[in-house]
């Protein structure tokens, strides 16, 4: 598993356990996330604290998750963004759409 999950009341925290989230591992991570969510209707906090690099393939997994959560009328929050992932969200304007929070430990 390339993710770790912590469940708390109504919210699932998904921690990506990789430094690079890209075309080389996006299929596996996508599958891991899908298995973990598996029809649950929880808010999701995606913890990217360990991730130093995301490419457009990694980004596409986050977009798919965002759409899925929207469909369920549930939140997707993203925390722990390092420099390159934040730069990528800014250039793609997704920082205006995603809910980004600084602290991964706040409730």
């Amino acid at each position, binding site marked *: 598993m390339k993710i770790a999950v912590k469940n708390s009341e109504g919210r699932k925290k998904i921690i990506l356990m990789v430094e690079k989230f890209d075309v*080389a591992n996006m299929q596996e991570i996508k599958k891991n996330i899908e298995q973990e969510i598996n029809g649950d209707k929880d808010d999701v906090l995606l913890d990217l604290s360990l991730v130093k690099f995301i490419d457009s*393939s990694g980004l*596409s997994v986050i977009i798919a998750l965002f759409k899925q959560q929207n469909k369920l009328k549930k939140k997707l929050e993203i925390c722990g963004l390092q420099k390159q992932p934040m730069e990528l969200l800014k*250039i*793609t*304007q997704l920082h205006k759409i995603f809910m980004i929070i600084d602290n991964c430990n706040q409730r």
Partner: protein
Amino acid sequence: MKSRLVIKSEIVSIERVYNWIESFLKGEVSAKILRDILLITQEMVTNAILHGNREIVEKEVIIEINTFVDTVVVTVTDEGEGIERLPLQEEAKELDYLAENGRGLKLAVLMTHKIELNGNSIKLIFKRR
């Protein structure tokens, strides 16, 4: 300074390209420029493997880096037929935020100083500062 790397068309080779660029350019350009070069080169190599060479492992992708006083030039060449044209700046800026694919070339247009298409070869020019 210049360097050249030839890889087979398999996605596992992506890691090798990343590490090669990082070790070749570390200290040569700022951390921000290095991050941009790593991302855009990876996007172009991914396109070369998946679309240019259609993941036929024996087909090669050649990546060359040349550093000049003001610029870093990265060229990515595959064995495919090439693409018809690059997105225009205006098209690249009109990103479909939530599209799940088709972002790589638009990012390349937005994040390079200059980009040139020559058949199955793409030249990425980055300012060093």
